[in-house]
Protein backbone atom coordinates (compact mmCIF):
# COMPACT_ATOMS: atom_id res chain seq x y z
CA UNK A 1 0.00 0.00 0.00
CA UNK A 2 1.30 3.41 -0.94
CA UNK A 3 2.35 5.62 1.94
CA UNK A 4 -0.11 8.41 2.66
CA UNK A 5 1.11 11.97 2.65
CA UNK A 6 -0.52 14.53 4.92
CA UNK A 7 -2.35 17.47 3.44
CA UNK A 8 -3.63 18.67 6.76
CA UNK A 9 -5.83 18.08 9.79
CA UNK A 10 -9.31 19.41 9.14
CA UNK A 11 -10.74 20.18 12.56
CA UNK A 12 -14.33 21.21 13.11
CA UNK A 13 -14.06 23.34 16.24
CA UNK A 14 -17.85 23.65 16.53
CA UNK A 15 -18.22 19.89 16.80
CA UNK A 16 -15.18 19.12 18.96
CA UNK A 17 -16.14 18.65 22.61
CA UNK A 18 -12.62 18.34 23.90
CA UNK A 19 -12.84 14.80 25.23
CA UNK A 20 -9.14 14.34 24.52
CA UNK A 21 -9.41 10.82 23.07
CA UNK A 22 -7.62 11.79 19.86
CA UNK A 23 -4.90 13.59 21.78
CA UNK A 24 -4.22 10.70 24.12
CA UNK A 25 -4.18 7.92 21.57
CA UNK A 26 -2.21 9.70 18.84
CA UNK A 27 0.92 7.52 18.47
CA UNK A 28 3.05 10.55 17.53
CA UNK A 29 1.59 13.14 19.91
CA UNK A 30 0.59 15.40 17.05
CA UNK A 31 -2.52 16.76 18.73
CA UNK A 32 -3.23 18.89 21.80
CA UNK A 33 -6.21 20.62 23.34
CA UNK A 34 -6.01 24.42 23.34
CA UNK A 35 -7.16 26.81 26.05
CA UNK A 36 -10.77 26.39 24.82
CA UNK A 37 -10.54 22.58 25.07
CA UNK A 38 -10.61 22.23 21.29
CA UNK A 39 -8.17 19.98 19.48
CA UNK A 40 -5.36 21.49 17.43
CA UNK A 41 -2.61 19.79 15.41
CA UNK A 42 0.49 21.23 17.03
CA UNK A 43 3.06 18.90 15.44
CA UNK A 44 1.60 18.04 12.02
CA UNK A 45 5.06 17.25 10.70
CA UNK A 46 5.11 14.18 12.96
CA UNK A 47 1.77 12.82 11.69
CA UNK A 48 1.97 9.37 10.09
CA UNK A 49 -1.60 9.55 8.73
CA UNK A 50 -2.75 6.49 10.68
CA UNK A 51 -6.13 8.25 11.00
CA UNK A 52 -6.78 6.75 14.42
CA UNK A 53 -7.83 10.19 15.63
CA UNK A 54 -10.38 10.44 12.84
CA UNK A 55 -11.73 6.95 13.50
CA UNK A 56 -11.92 7.43 17.27
CA UNK A 57 -13.42 10.87 17.33
CA UNK A 58 -16.89 10.56 18.87
CA UNK A 59 -17.85 13.90 17.38
CA UNK A 60 -16.70 13.44 13.76
CA UNK A 61 -14.72 16.59 14.38
CA UNK A 62 -11.36 15.66 12.91
CA UNK A 63 -10.35 14.53 9.48
CA UNK A 64 -6.84 13.67 8.36
CA UNK A 65 -6.61 14.83 4.79
CA UNK A 66 -4.04 13.01 2.73
CA UNK A 67 -2.78 12.59 -0.78
CA UNK A 68 -1.23 9.44 -2.16
CA UNK A 69 2.58 9.61 -2.39
Amino acid at each position, binding site marked *: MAKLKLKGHLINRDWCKGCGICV*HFCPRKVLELDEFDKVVAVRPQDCVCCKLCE*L*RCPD*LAIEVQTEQD
Partner: protein
Amino acid sequence: MPAREYIRERFFPHIWCPGCGHGIVLNGLVRAIENIGLKKNDIVMVSGIGCSSRIAGYMDFHTLHTIHGRALAFAIGVKMSRPDLTLLVPMGDGDALSIGGNHFIHACRRNIDMTAIVMNNRVYGMTGGQYSPLSGYGTMATTAPYTNIDQAFDVVSMATAAGATFVARATAYHVQQLPGILEEAIRHKGFSVVEVMTPCPTYFGRKNKEGSAVDMMENLKTRTTPIGSKAKQENPSLIERGIFVKKELPEYCAEYQRIVERAMKGK
Protein backbone atom coordinates in the same frame (compact mmCIF):
# COMPACT_ATOMS: atom_id res chain seq x y z
CA MET B 1 -14.46 11.79 5.09
CA PRO B 2 -17.23 9.36 4.30
CA ALA B 3 -19.29 10.49 7.27
CA ARG B 4 -20.41 13.70 5.63
CA GLU B 5 -22.48 12.05 2.98
CA TYR B 6 -24.44 9.86 5.37
CA ILE B 7 -25.18 12.22 8.23
CA ARG B 8 -27.58 15.08 8.73
CA GLU B 9 -24.94 17.67 9.41
CA ARG B 10 -27.42 20.33 10.40
CA PHE B 11 -28.02 18.55 13.71
CA PHE B 12 -24.35 18.51 14.70
CA PRO B 13 -22.71 18.83 17.13
CA HIS B 14 -24.72 15.90 18.45
CA ILE B 15 -26.31 15.65 21.91
CA TRP B 16 -23.95 13.02 23.27
CA CYS B 17 -21.59 13.95 26.09
CA PRO B 18 -17.87 14.57 25.53
CA GLY B 19 -16.15 11.23 25.10
CA CYS B 20 -19.36 9.22 24.69
CA GLY B 21 -18.63 6.07 22.72
CA HIS B 22 -21.90 6.26 20.81
CA GLY B 23 -20.37 8.82 18.46
CA ILE B 24 -17.55 6.39 17.74
CA VAL B 25 -20.12 3.77 16.78
CA LEU B 26 -21.75 6.26 14.43
CA ASN B 27 -18.31 7.02 13.03
CA GLY B 28 -17.59 3.34 12.41
CA LEU B 29 -21.02 2.68 10.97
CA VAL B 30 -20.81 5.29 8.23
CA ARG B 31 -17.46 3.85 7.19
CA ALA B 32 -18.94 0.36 7.04
CA ILE B 33 -21.83 1.60 4.93
CA GLU B 34 -19.51 3.43 2.58
CA ASN B 35 -17.37 0.35 2.18
CA ILE B 36 -20.41 -1.70 1.21
CA GLY B 37 -21.56 1.07 -1.11
CA LEU B 38 -25.16 1.12 0.09
CA LYS B 39 -27.46 3.81 -1.23
CA LYS B 40 -29.07 6.00 1.40
CA ASN B 41 -32.54 5.41 -0.01
CA ASP B 42 -32.08 1.68 0.54
CA ILE B 43 -31.32 1.93 4.25
CA VAL B 44 -33.85 2.09 7.05
CA MET B 45 -32.56 2.77 10.54
CA VAL B 46 -34.91 1.93 13.37
CA SER B 47 -34.11 2.89 16.94
CA GLY B 48 -35.84 2.84 20.31
CA ILE B 49 -35.37 5.18 23.26
CA GLY B 50 -32.28 6.27 25.12
CA CYS B 51 -29.01 7.95 24.31
CA SER B 52 -28.23 5.30 21.71
CA SER B 53 -31.52 5.76 19.89
CA ARG B 54 -30.67 9.32 19.01
CA ILE B 55 -28.24 7.99 16.42
CA ALA B 56 -31.15 7.57 13.98
CA GLY B 57 -31.87 11.28 13.86
CA TYR B 58 -28.29 11.98 12.79
CA MET B 59 -28.24 9.55 9.89
CA ASP B 60 -29.52 10.56 6.46
CA PHE B 61 -31.50 7.36 5.86
CA HIS B 62 -35.14 6.53 6.30
CA THR B 63 -35.15 6.85 10.07
CA LEU B 64 -37.70 5.57 12.53
CA HIS B 65 -37.25 6.66 16.13
CA THR B 66 -39.71 4.49 18.02
CA ILE B 67 -40.56 3.57 21.61
CA HIS B 68 -38.45 2.07 24.34
CA GLY B 69 -37.36 -1.48 23.62
CA ARG B 70 -39.47 -2.05 20.54
CA ALA B 71 -37.16 -1.03 17.72
CA LEU B 72 -36.75 -4.60 16.47
CA ALA B 73 -40.50 -5.15 16.31
CA PHE B 74 -40.97 -2.03 14.19
CA ALA B 75 -38.00 -3.04 12.06
CA ILE B 76 -39.52 -6.47 11.43
CA GLY B 77 -42.66 -4.80 10.07
CA VAL B 78 -40.59 -2.72 7.69
CA LYS B 79 -38.38 -5.60 6.61
CA MET B 80 -41.23 -8.04 6.00
CA SER B 81 -42.89 -5.45 3.79
CA ARG B 82 -39.72 -4.45 1.96
CA PRO B 83 -37.20 -7.31 2.15
CA ASP B 84 -35.02 -5.47 -0.37
CA LEU B 85 -34.19 -2.73 2.14
CA THR B 86 -31.22 -2.84 4.52
CA LEU B 87 -32.35 -2.61 8.13
CA LEU B 88 -30.05 -1.24 10.81
CA VAL B 89 -31.27 -1.34 14.38
CA PRO B 90 -29.04 0.45 16.87
CA MET B 91 -30.09 -0.03 20.49
CA GLY B 92 -28.77 0.65 23.94
CA ASP B 93 -28.13 -2.18 26.37
CA GLY B 94 -31.19 -1.37 28.48
CA ASP B 95 -33.26 -0.74 25.37
CA ALA B 96 -32.27 -4.01 23.68
CA LEU B 97 -31.99 -6.35 26.63
CA SER B 98 -34.17 -5.12 29.47
CA ILE B 99 -37.39 -3.63 28.16
CA GLY B 100 -36.71 -5.02 24.70
CA GLY B 101 -35.27 -8.37 25.75
CA ASN B 102 -38.19 -10.41 24.52
CA HIS B 103 -38.16 -8.82 21.08
CA PHE B 104 -34.41 -9.29 20.96
CA ILE B 105 -34.42 -13.03 21.54
CA HIS B 106 -37.31 -13.61 19.16
CA ALA B 107 -35.66 -11.57 16.42
CA CYS B 108 -32.57 -13.76 16.88
CA ARG B 109 -34.72 -16.88 16.70
CA ARG B 110 -36.43 -15.89 13.45
CA ASN B 111 -33.18 -15.10 11.66
CA ILE B 112 -34.64 -12.13 9.83
CA ASP B 113 -32.09 -10.25 7.75
CA MET B 114 -31.16 -7.14 9.71
CA THR B 115 -28.34 -5.85 11.86
CA ALA B 116 -28.89 -5.20 15.54
CA ILE B 117 -26.17 -3.04 17.06
CA VAL B 118 -26.16 -3.12 20.84
CA MET B 119 -24.33 -0.01 22.02
CA ASN B 120 -23.41 -1.30 25.43
CA ASN B 121 -22.40 1.41 27.88
CA ARG B 122 -23.69 -0.55 30.89
CA VAL B 123 -25.97 2.22 32.10
CA TYR B 124 -29.18 4.13 31.47
CA GLY B 125 -27.68 7.42 30.38
CA MET B 126 -30.68 9.39 29.18
CA THR B 127 -32.36 9.14 32.57
CA GLY B 128 -29.19 9.88 34.47
CA GLY B 129 -27.21 6.78 35.43
CA GLN B 130 -29.39 3.93 36.63
CA TYR B 131 -28.05 0.38 36.44
CA SER B 132 -28.82 -1.58 33.31
CA PRO B 133 -29.01 -5.35 32.78
CA LEU B 134 -25.41 -5.15 31.59
CA SER B 135 -23.98 -3.06 34.43
CA GLY B 136 -22.98 -6.16 36.30
CA TYR B 137 -22.65 -7.32 39.90
CA GLY B 138 -20.79 -4.93 42.14
CA THR B 139 -21.17 -1.82 40.01
CA MET B 140 -22.58 1.45 41.29
CA ALA B 141 -25.48 3.41 39.87
CA THR B 142 -27.98 6.01 41.03
CA THR B 143 -30.41 3.17 41.67
CA ALA B 144 -27.71 1.01 43.22
CA PRO B 145 -26.26 3.46 45.73
CA TYR B 146 -24.88 0.67 47.95
CA THR B 147 -23.89 -1.72 45.17
CA ASN B 148 -25.57 -3.53 42.31
CA ILE B 149 -26.58 -7.10 43.14
CA ASP B 150 -27.95 -7.86 39.66
CA GLN B 151 -25.89 -10.20 37.56
CA ALA B 152 -25.25 -9.05 33.99
CA PHE B 153 -26.20 -10.66 30.72
CA ASP B 154 -23.58 -11.71 28.25
CA VAL B 155 -25.09 -10.35 25.03
CA VAL B 156 -22.98 -12.58 22.83
CA SER B 157 -23.94 -15.78 24.67
CA MET B 158 -27.58 -14.87 24.74
CA ALA B 159 -27.76 -13.90 21.07
CA THR B 160 -25.97 -17.13 20.21
CA ALA B 161 -28.31 -19.22 22.33
CA ALA B 162 -31.33 -17.48 20.84
CA GLY B 163 -30.18 -18.40 17.34
CA ALA B 164 -28.66 -15.30 15.81
CA THR B 165 -26.64 -16.36 12.78
CA PHE B 166 -24.01 -13.63 13.12
CA VAL B 167 -22.77 -12.58 16.53
CA ALA B 168 -19.83 -10.31 17.20
CA ARG B 169 -18.36 -8.07 19.84
CA ALA B 170 -16.40 -4.92 19.16
CA THR B 171 -15.35 -1.93 21.20
CA ALA B 172 -15.23 1.81 20.70
CA TYR B 173 -11.49 1.62 21.30
CA HIS B 174 -10.71 -0.91 18.59
CA VAL B 175 -11.69 1.34 15.72
CA GLN B 176 -9.54 -0.45 13.19
CA GLN B 177 -11.80 -3.50 13.61
CA LEU B 178 -15.14 -1.81 14.23
CA PRO B 179 -16.10 -0.77 10.67
CA GLY B 180 -15.04 -4.16 9.33
CA ILE B 181 -17.13 -6.07 11.85
CA LEU B 182 -20.14 -3.86 11.18
CA GLU B 183 -19.62 -4.31 7.46
CA GLU B 184 -19.55 -8.08 7.79
CA ALA B 185 -22.66 -7.99 9.98
CA ILE B 186 -24.59 -5.90 7.48
CA ARG B 187 -23.48 -8.09 4.58
CA HIS B 188 -24.53 -11.24 6.43
CA LYS B 189 -27.83 -12.64 5.18
CA GLY B 190 -29.68 -13.21 8.42
CA PHE B 191 -30.01 -11.72 11.87
CA SER B 192 -26.75 -10.11 12.94
CA VAL B 193 -25.92 -8.93 16.43
CA VAL B 194 -22.95 -6.70 17.08
CA GLU B 195 -22.30 -5.70 20.65
CA VAL B 196 -20.15 -2.59 20.77
CA MET B 197 -18.74 -1.80 24.19
CA THR B 198 -18.83 1.96 24.50
CA PRO B 199 -17.76 4.21 27.35
CA CYS B 200 -20.21 6.43 29.23
CA PRO B 201 -17.81 8.67 31.11
CA THR B 202 -20.58 10.90 32.41
CA TYR B 203 -22.58 8.30 34.31
CA PHE B 204 -21.03 4.85 34.39
CA GLY B 205 -17.53 6.28 34.53
CA ARG B 206 -18.18 8.73 37.33
CA LYS B 207 -20.24 6.36 39.44
CA ASN B 208 -17.70 3.58 39.15
CA LYS B 209 -14.58 5.72 39.39
CA GLU B 210 -13.39 4.68 35.98
CA GLY B 211 -11.89 8.08 35.29
CA SER B 212 -12.08 10.15 32.14
CA ALA B 213 -13.24 9.15 28.67
CA VAL B 214 -9.60 8.48 27.88
CA ASP B 215 -9.25 6.21 30.92
CA MET B 216 -12.37 4.30 29.94
CA MET B 217 -11.01 3.83 26.43
CA GLU B 218 -7.78 2.50 27.97
CA ASN B 219 -9.90 0.06 29.95
CA LEU B 220 -11.51 -1.22 26.76
CA LYS B 221 -8.03 -1.87 25.48
CA THR B 222 -6.74 -3.67 28.57
CA ARG B 223 -9.89 -5.59 29.55
CA THR B 224 -10.58 -7.15 26.16
CA THR B 225 -8.73 -9.55 23.93
CA PRO B 226 -9.28 -11.20 20.54
CA ILE B 227 -11.25 -14.45 20.56
CA GLY B 228 -9.09 -17.41 21.47
CA SER B 229 -6.05 -15.37 22.36
CA LYS B 230 -3.30 -16.67 24.61
CA ALA B 231 -4.00 -13.76 26.91
CA LYS B 232 -7.49 -15.12 27.51
CA GLN B 233 -6.07 -18.45 28.63
CA GLU B 234 -3.82 -16.69 31.08
CA ASN B 235 -6.46 -14.24 32.27
CA PRO B 236 -9.99 -15.64 31.95
CA SER B 237 -11.55 -12.37 33.11
CA LEU B 238 -10.65 -10.72 29.80
CA ILE B 239 -13.61 -10.09 27.53
CA GLU B 240 -13.26 -11.58 24.09
CA ARG B 241 -13.95 -9.55 20.97
CA GLY B 242 -14.32 -10.59 17.37
CA ILE B 243 -16.83 -12.68 15.42
CA PHE B 244 -18.24 -15.51 17.52
CA VAL B 245 -20.90 -16.88 15.21
CA LYS B 246 -21.29 -16.79 11.47
CA LYS B 247 -23.50 -19.45 9.98
CA GLU B 248 -26.02 -19.93 7.25
CA LEU B 249 -29.61 -20.72 8.11
CA PRO B 250 -32.84 -20.07 6.20
CA GLU B 251 -33.63 -16.36 6.28
CA TYR B 252 -37.11 -15.38 7.45
CA CYS B 253 -38.22 -13.13 4.57
CA ALA B 254 -37.10 -15.70 2.01
CA GLU B 255 -38.89 -18.43 3.95
CA TYR B 256 -42.06 -16.39 4.07
CA GLN B 257 -41.85 -15.91 0.31
CA ARG B 258 -41.96 -19.69 0.03
CA ILE B 259 -45.09 -19.71 2.20
CA VAL B 260 -46.68 -17.21 -0.20
CA GLU B 261 -45.82 -19.42 -3.14
CA ARG B 262 -47.33 -22.46 -1.42
CA ALA B 263 -50.46 -20.56 -0.47
CA MET B 264 -50.93 -19.27 -3.99
CA LYS B 265 -50.69 -22.81 -5.30
CA GLY B 266 -53.29 -23.79 -2.72
CA LYS B 267 -50.99 -26.25 -0.95
